[in-house]
C-alpha cells in the first residue's frame, strides 16, 4: 500500500484521525544493543513522523526470549494501536499475540516470522535465503575452494541459526569448500574478535570467514586487520553497520548482506497504520519479502545512497 494519505475511503468519522484509536504503535525488536536495530528504529521514527503517528521501539538489552515476552506482556496493558514483533523465539510469543488479537490489537510479524500464530502477516526477509546469499558471496570471493570459518553471535538465537543453516546450504554446493570452525561471540564484538583471532591461529591456511550476527563481522574485520590478513582472507557478514562499511573501505570486508532494516521497518509501520484505520492492508496472511541485498565494495557507495 502507498503512503497513507489519511482521509480517503473512510466510512466512519473516527478514521479521519491519523490512527483510529489515536494510540501508539509498538515495535518489539529482539534487542536494542545492536546497530541493526538502530537502523530499524530510525526507519520507524522517520515513517512515524511522515504519517504523523506515535510509535515506540521497546526491546530487551540482549536477545532474550523471556525478557521480550515480559515487555510484550507489559505493552499489552497499555492497549497499543498496533504491534510489530520480531521474535527472539517464535513459539514464546504465540500466546501474547493471541491475547493482543483478542483485545482487538493488530499484530504483525516483522523481521522474523511467527508460524502457527494469529499474526496478520509477515514482513521481513527470509533468514535462510539471506544465509545462502552470504554463503554464495563468500564462495565466489574465495574462488569456490578453501577452508572457511564461522563466527556466530549465539548458538540459540533462532534467526542466527536460520542464517547459519542457509550458509551451510550454500557451502554444501561447493565440494572444495570446507567449514573448519564455528565459534560463538555472545553478541559481543570483543569476543567475536578474540574468537576470530584465535581461529586465525588454529587455522593458518584459512581462506574466508563469515560473521553471522551483527557483532560478528566487525570482530572478524578487526581480527583480520590486527593479524595483517585483510584481503588475503575473505570476510562476509550481515548488516551494513558502520564498522562493516569502514571494514569494506579498508579492504578487510568483501561482502555484506543487508536486510535493509530501515525500509523494512518503515513499511511495517505503514501496514500497521493501515490496519489500525481499518484499511485492508496488504491482504490476509500477507507475506512480504523485503529482500536481501549483497553489498560488495563496488556497490557500496551506490547502496549507501538508498534508504537501507
Amino acid at each position, binding site marked *: 500500500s502507498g503512503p497513507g494519505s489519511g482521509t480517503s475511503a473512510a466510512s466512519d468519522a473516527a478514521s479521519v484521525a491519523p490512527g483510529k484509536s489515536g494510540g501508539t504503535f509498538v515495535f518489539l525488536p529482539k534487542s536494542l544493543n545492536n546497530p541493526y536495530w538502530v537502523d530499524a528504529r530510525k526507519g520507524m521514527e522517520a515513517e512515524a513522523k511522515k504519517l504523523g503517528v506515535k510509535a515506540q521501539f521497546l526491546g530487551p538489552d*540482549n536477545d532474550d526470549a523471556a525478557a521480550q515476552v515480559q515487555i510484550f*506482556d507489559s505493552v499489552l496493558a497499555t492497549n497499543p494501536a498496533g504491534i510489530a514483533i520480531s521474535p527472539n523465539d517464535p513459539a514464546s510469543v504465540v500466546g501474547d499475540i493471541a491475547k493482543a488479537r483478542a483485545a482487538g490489537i493488530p499484530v504483525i510479524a516483522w523481521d522474523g516470522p511467527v508460524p502457527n500464530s494469529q499474526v496478520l502477516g509477515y514482513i521481513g526477509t527470509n533468514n535462510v535465503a539471506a544465509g545462502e546469499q552470504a554463503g554464495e558471496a563468500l564462495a565466489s570471493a574465495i574462488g569456490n575452494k578453501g577452508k572457511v570459518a564461522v563466527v556466530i553471535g549465539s548458538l540459540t538465537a533462532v534467526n542466527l541459526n536460520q542464517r547459519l543453516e542457509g550458509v551451510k546450504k550454500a557451502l554444501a554446493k561447493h565440494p572444495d569448500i570446507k567449514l573448519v570452525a564455528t565459534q560463538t561471540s555472545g553478541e559481543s564484538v570483543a569476543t567475536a574478535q578474540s574468537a576470530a583471532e584465535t581461529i586465525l591461529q588454529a587455522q593458518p591456511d584459512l581462506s574466508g570467514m563469515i560473521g553471522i550476527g551483527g557483532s560478528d563481522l566487525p570482530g572478524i574485520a578487526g581480527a583480520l586487520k590486527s593479524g595483517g590478513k585483510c584481503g588475503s582472507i575473505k570476510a562476509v557478514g550481515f548488516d551494513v553497520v558502520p564498522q562493516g562499511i569502514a571494514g569494506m573501505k579498508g579492504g578487510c570486508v568483501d561482502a555484506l548482506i543487508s536486510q535493509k532494516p530501515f525500509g523494512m521497518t518503515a513499511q511495517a509501520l505503514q501496514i500497521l497504520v493501515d490496519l489500525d484505520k481499518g484499511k485492508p492492508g496488504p491482504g490476509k496472511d500477507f507475506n512480504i519479502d523485503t529482500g536481501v541485498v549483497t553489498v560488495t565494495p563496488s556497490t557500496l557507495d551506490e547502496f549507501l545512497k538508498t534508504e537501507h
Partner: protein
Amino acid sequence: MVILLIIFLSIASPYFLTPGNITVVGRQIALALIISTGMTFVILIGGIDLSVGSIVALVSVLTGGAMVSLGLPPVVAVLIALLGGLAVGVVNGVINAYGGLPSFVVTLGMLAAARGVALGITGGSTISGFPEPFLFLGQGSIAGVPVPIWIAAVIAVVAHVVLTRTTYGRHIFFVGSNEEAAVLSGIDVRRIKVSVFVISAGLAAVSGILETSRLSVGQPGAGNGYELLAIGAAVIGGASLFGGVGGVLGTALGTTLLLLIQNALILLGISPYWQQVFSGAIIVGAVALNQWRRRRA
C-alpha cells in the same frame, strides 16, 4: 517502599492497576520469586548460587526433550526435569560442602557447565509443540489467579515458615552467622550446606518448568542473567552476602521492586534507552530509603 512505588504508579499510569496488568506483573514476579526464594536459602548460609539461570535453561530443554522429542507424558517429563535440576544442586552442594571449594567458584563452573549441557543436547535449537495440559501450568488460571502465582505463593509461605519456625531453618541462620560455632554446637553443617544448594536448584527447576510452559518453548538460552536478578532481589530485601541475615519476606519485596520497575518504566513510556538509568537509580534509592528509615526507627 514498594508500597510507595505502587501508590505512585497507580497515580502515574492509568494502566498500572488494571486487572490485566496486575496479572501480567504478578506472573512475572511469581516466576522470579520462586528462584530468589531458593537463592535466599543459599545466601543465608553465606553462600552464593550463580547457576540458577543455567538450571532454568537445562530444565527447559529437559522438559522439552522429554515431553516433545521423546513424547513422554507431561507428568513424567516434568519429574525428569525436576530431578535433573535437583541433581545439579546436589553436585553444587557436595563440591562446596565436602570439597571445600568456595560456592562462587563451584556455581560459576556450574553456570557454564549446565548451560553447556543444555546447549549440547539441543544443538542450540529450541523445542516447541508442548501438549495443552502442560501449558496450563504456566498459562492457566485457577479462580482467576494465574497458576504460577499460586505456586509461588505456596513456596514462599512454606519457605518463610521453614526459615523462621523450624529447627532446620534456625540452623541455616546459625551456620550463616557463625559456621565454626555451628560445627561446635553439633550441627551437621555440611548436610545443611548441601541441602540449601538442593533447595535453590530445585526451586530454579520449578521456575524453569513454569517458564517453559508460559513461553511454550524449551530453549537452551533461557534464564540468562537470572542469577544476578535473584541475588539482587535477596540483597535488596535486606539479606547479607556474609550470611546469617535475610528472609523470604524481604526477598519477596526485593523481587517485587525489581520487576515493578521494569513494568513501570514501560507503562510510563520512558524511552527504553534511558530506562536502565532510572532502574539503577530506583534500586539504590529504594534501599537507601529503607536503610534510612530503619536507622531512624
